[in-house]
């Protein structure tokens, strides 16, 4: 991205770096572990890919026009991406999110001119989905409901982008691919592209081990509204990862690899290491969804500071 000359920020999505985790690999001698740094996208997360694709596909076939408002439920990163592209391409964006999303997320999206509608924090991201459906049902002509959980453009972005890029970058050596399940778009789309490769590549979906978890962006499918785009039979394996394991791996990646990533990335890498440990001479590719600074919370003394 650094060397490309671009006409619009929309073009800056994709072609993200692939980084080898040499310190971590020592836990599984003889294997290689790569991390695809999706936070290098202009909006700072993997969600730039589906948001861009959902908008471009809808503009092309007329579902999204300048007199409509793009609306969706999001706990954050997809919202940042819609907001960024909305600002750049001239579309209005409304987002429904649980009121306990991080302040950083609210501030970033609002900086782009996006309007936020809050849902009950007790209902989590599913509460936001229920609320947005109700709003759209009441005013169907006002909105383009992007619906990242059901929109085929979401996995398509990863089929066309993420999957193809992984094969370009490490196609000769990859044996396993690991991605967490949120909307499941990354896992579904990338897996479909990797399945077209001449050699079998094992695709593993990471899922939070507990219903009440702290892996923001990931979904515990058994206790959630299951996304329409999710096909549970597509991955070779569903690998449960605990919150503590994900959080500890995030800390370790910062301390040992110089990567400050969010907790969903920690969970993906914890899963990737587990896979590498049991598959001799494997080459495992995992996804870094976003950076850790998106999750900074106010410190105790900042919380009561009066501006």
């Amino acid at each position, binding site marked *: 991205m650094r060397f490309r000359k671009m006409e619009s920020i929309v073009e800056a999505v994709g072609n993200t770096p692939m980084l080898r985790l040499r310190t971590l690999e020592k836990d599984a001698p003889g294997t290689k572990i790569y991390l695809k740094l999706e936070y290098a996208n202009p909006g700072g997360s993997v969600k730039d890919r589906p948001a861009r694709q959902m908008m471009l596909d809808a503009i092309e076939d007329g579902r999204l026009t300048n007199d409509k408002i793009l609306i969706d439920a999001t*706990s*954050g990163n997809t919202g940042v991406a819609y907001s960024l592209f909305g600002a750049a391409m001239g579309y209005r964006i409304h987002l429904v*999110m*649980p009121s*306990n*999303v*991080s*302040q*950083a*997320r609210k501030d970033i999206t609002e900086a782009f001119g996006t309007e936020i509608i809050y849902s009950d*924090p*007790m*209902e*989590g*991201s*599913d*509460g936001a989905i229920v609320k947005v459906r109700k709003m759209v049902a009441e005013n169907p002509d006002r909105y383009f409901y992007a619906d990242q959980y059901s929109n085929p453009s979401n996995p398509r972005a990863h089929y066309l982008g993420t999957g193809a890029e992984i094969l370009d970058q490490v196609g000769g050596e990859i044996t396993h691919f690991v991605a967490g399940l949120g909307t499941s778009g990354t896992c579904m789309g990338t897996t479909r592209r990797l399945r077209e490769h001449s050699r079998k590549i094992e695709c593993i979906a990471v899922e939070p081990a*507990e*219903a*009440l*978890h*702290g*892996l*923001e962006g990931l979904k*515990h499918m058994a*206790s959630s509204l299951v996304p329409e785009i999710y096909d549970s039979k597509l991955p070779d394996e569903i690998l449960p990862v605990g*919150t*503590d394991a994900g*959080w500890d791996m995030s800390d370790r990646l910062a301390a040992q690899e110089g990567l400050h990533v969010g907790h969903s990335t920690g969970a993906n890498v914890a899963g990737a290491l587990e896979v590498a440990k049991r598959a001799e001479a494997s080459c495992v590719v995992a996804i870094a969804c976003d950076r850790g600074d*998106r*999750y900074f*919370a106010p410190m*105790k003394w900042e*919380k009561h500071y009066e501006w």
Partner: protein
Amino acid sequence: MAVTVRIPTPLRTLTGGADEVSADGGTVAEVIDNLETNHPGMKDRLCDEKGVRRFVNIYANDEDIRFLDNLETALTEGDTLSIVPAIAGGASR
């Protein structure tokens, strides 16, 4: 001392689907013990051996108990305790 406890979606399997339950106790720790008696499994979801799990946020009325006295935070009749999943950020580290 009866307080109202708000239960998030992922824990409602333990409360028969209820989004609010009543519990007894003069501190957060006592309320959690009482919840465990009436809804077995609850304590393990909320706490580990070091106290409240890192990714679980408990609010006494409108304040995170981490900014109060944690598990020893005193409660009075009619207070509301909310168990908020850290899923959407805001977790103290």
